[in-house]
C-alpha cells in the first residue's frame, strides 16, 4: 500500500516539510514555514495523521506554539502556550524560554499532548495543543527543582526536559528525561515520578548519587517491546530491560576510536534488538563534531553486544557537522527509513536501514529536529 510520508525538519530559522511515498525516492519540499523562527520540534499526531504541532520562538520574542489540523497546510497559534504558574514574590519564579519537546499522549487519549520545556518543566494539553497547563508536581517540587539546576547548568542554550515517553500498553506509565537531572518514571499518570539512575555514569569527579549531575541525551522505548529502552547519555550508550531498574552500558562495545558519546538514539519499529546512534567527538573540550571529520551512524542488531558502522554515501573526510538530540529518526516502512539532519543544514536519509545514505536537502539552516510520520 502506498503511504504519505511526511518528514518534519525543524531548524534554527524555520520549519520545512518533505513529502514522499513509500518508495521514498522523490521528495517534495514545502517550506519554509515560520521563516526566522527557531523551531525546536515539530510532531505529527499519529492518532489522526493530520494534527501537527510546532514549538517556536524568535531571538527577540517569547515562545509560542503553532498548530495545524491539515498536516501543515494552514496554521493557528495556540491560545495558551506552555507557561509556568505565576509565582507572586518568589525569587525562583521561572519563565518558559522555549518549548523543546512535544509528545502525543496515549492512543486512548485523543487530543492529549505533553511538552517539555527549557528551563525544565513538564506541561500537558487536553485539547490538541491549543491550551497548555503545568503538569504533575515536578515543576514546583523542591527536590525536583534542585535536581533541575538553573539556567547556568548544563546545555548551552538552557537545560531541556526531553524524551517524554508514553507506554503504549498503559496511558499512566510515563517516562521523561532532563538534560540536567536524569531519567524519571511515573506509574500513576504523572502524579508522582521516581528517578531511574542505577548503572549510569556521570562526568568524572562528580557525585553519581546526585541526580543533578546525570545528563541523559535521548531515551527511546521500543514499540515492539515496551519493556526495553535505549539511552544515549552524555556518558555512554545504555539499555534498560524492565522490570530491572539498572541501565547496562552497551556503548563500551563501540570502537574505541569512535567512542560512545552522541545525542540521538533511534529504535527499530518492530525489532527491539536493533537501534542506531550517531556518535560525535566528546573528547577533551567536547568539539561536538563527527569524530575525525568522518560522520557515520552505528547500528546494533543484537541489543548492543556489537555495533556496525554505516557510512556508505556519507562524506569520508573533512565533514565536521554533527546531529543534534532530536535530529535523527526512523519511519515505520517495511524496509525502515532512517533520517537525520545536520548542524550544517543537510537532510540525509536511507531507505534500507542505513546501508546507503542519500542527501535529500542541502543549505538549510542548522537542523534541530527531524521527525517522520504517516499523514492522511
Amino acid at each position: 500500500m502506498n503511504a504519505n510520508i511526511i518528514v518534519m525538519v525543524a531548524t534554527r530559522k524555520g520549519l520545512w516539510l518533505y513529502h514522499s511515498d513509500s518508495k521514498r525516492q522523490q521528495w517534495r519540499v514545502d517550506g519554509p514555514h515560520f521563516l526566522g523562527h527557531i523551531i525546536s520540534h515539530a510532531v505529527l499526531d499519529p492518532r489522526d495523521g493530520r494534527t501537527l504541532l510546532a514549538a517556536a520562538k524568535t531571538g527577540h520574542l517569547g515562545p509560542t506554539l503553532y498548530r495545524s489540523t491539515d498536516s501543515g497546510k494552514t496554521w493557528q497559534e495556540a491560545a495558551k502556550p506552555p507557561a509556568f504558574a505565576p509565582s507572586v514574590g518568589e525569587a525562583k519564579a521561572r519563565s518558559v524560554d522555549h518549548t523543546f519537546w512535544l509528545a502525543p499522549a496515549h492512543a486512548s487519549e485523543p487530543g492529549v499532548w505533553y511538552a517539555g520545556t527549557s528551563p525544565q518543566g513538564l506541561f500537558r494539553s487536553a485539547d490538541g495543543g491549543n491550551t497548555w497547563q503545568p503538569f504533575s508536581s515536578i515543576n514546583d517540587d523542591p527536590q525536583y527543582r534542585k535536581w533541575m539546576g538553573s539556567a547556568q547548568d548544563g546545555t548551552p542554550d538552557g537545560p531541556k526536559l526531553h524524551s517524554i515517553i508514553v507506554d503504549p500498553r498503559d496511558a499512566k506509565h510515563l517516562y521523561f528525561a532532563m538534560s540536567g537531572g536524569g531519567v524519571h518514571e511515573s506509574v500513576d499518570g504523572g502524579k508522582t515520578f521516581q528517578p531511574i539512575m542505577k548503572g549510569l555514569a556521570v562526568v568524572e569527579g562528580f557525585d553519581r548519587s546526585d541526580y543533578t549531575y546525570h545528563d541523559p541525551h535521548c531515551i527511546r522505548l521500543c514499540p515492539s517491546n515496551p519493556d526495553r529502552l535505549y539511552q544515549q547519555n552524555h556518558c555512554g550508550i545504555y539499555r534498560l530491560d524492565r522490570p530491572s531498574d539498572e541501565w547496562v552500558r552497551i556503548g563500551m562495545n563501540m570502537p574505541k576510536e569512535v567512542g560512545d558519546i552522541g545525542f540521538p538514539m533511534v529504535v527499530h519499529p518492530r525489532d527491539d534488538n536493533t537501534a542506531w546512534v550517531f556518535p560525535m567527538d566528546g573528547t577533551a573540550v567536547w568539539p561536538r563534531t563527527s569524530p575525525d571529520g568522518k560522520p557515520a551512524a552505528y547500528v546494533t542488531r543484537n541489543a548492543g553486544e556489537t555495533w556496525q558502522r554505516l557510512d556508505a554515501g556519507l562524506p569520508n573526510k573533512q565533514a565536521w557537522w554533527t546531529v543534534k538530540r532530536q535530529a535523527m529518526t526512523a519511519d515505520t516502512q517495511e524496509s525502515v527509513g532512517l533520517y537525520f539532519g545536520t548542524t550544517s543544514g543537510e537532510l540525509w536519509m536511507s531507505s534500507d536501514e542505513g546501508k546507503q545514505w542519500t542527501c535529500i536537502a542541502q543549505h538549510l539552516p542548522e537542523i534541530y529536529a527531524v521527525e517522520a510520520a504517516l499523514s492522511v
Partner: protein
Amino acid sequence: MKVLIPSALRSYTEASEAEASGVTLAEVLADLDHSYPGIRFRMIDEQDKVRSHIRFFVDGEQVRDLSFPLSATGELIIVQALSGG
C-alpha cells in the same frame, strides 16, 4: 491610544499601528492582547516580566514598569531589540 507595532509582531496586527486603551501600560497591553490574542505573551512572560529584547517607549521615554500610567492621547512605541545571528 496609538500603539506602534514592530515588524516582528505585525503577524498579529497586520499593521504598523494599532489602537488600545487603558490607564497603565499593563492595561494597554491587556487590551492589545484582547484585540490580537497571543501578542502580549510574546512581549511579557508568565511572571509579568518584560522579555529581554522588548522595549516600551512613551513620549520618547523608556518605560519598564507595567504599572506606569498612560494617557489616552499619548503614543506607545514597542521596540524589538534585535539580537543574535
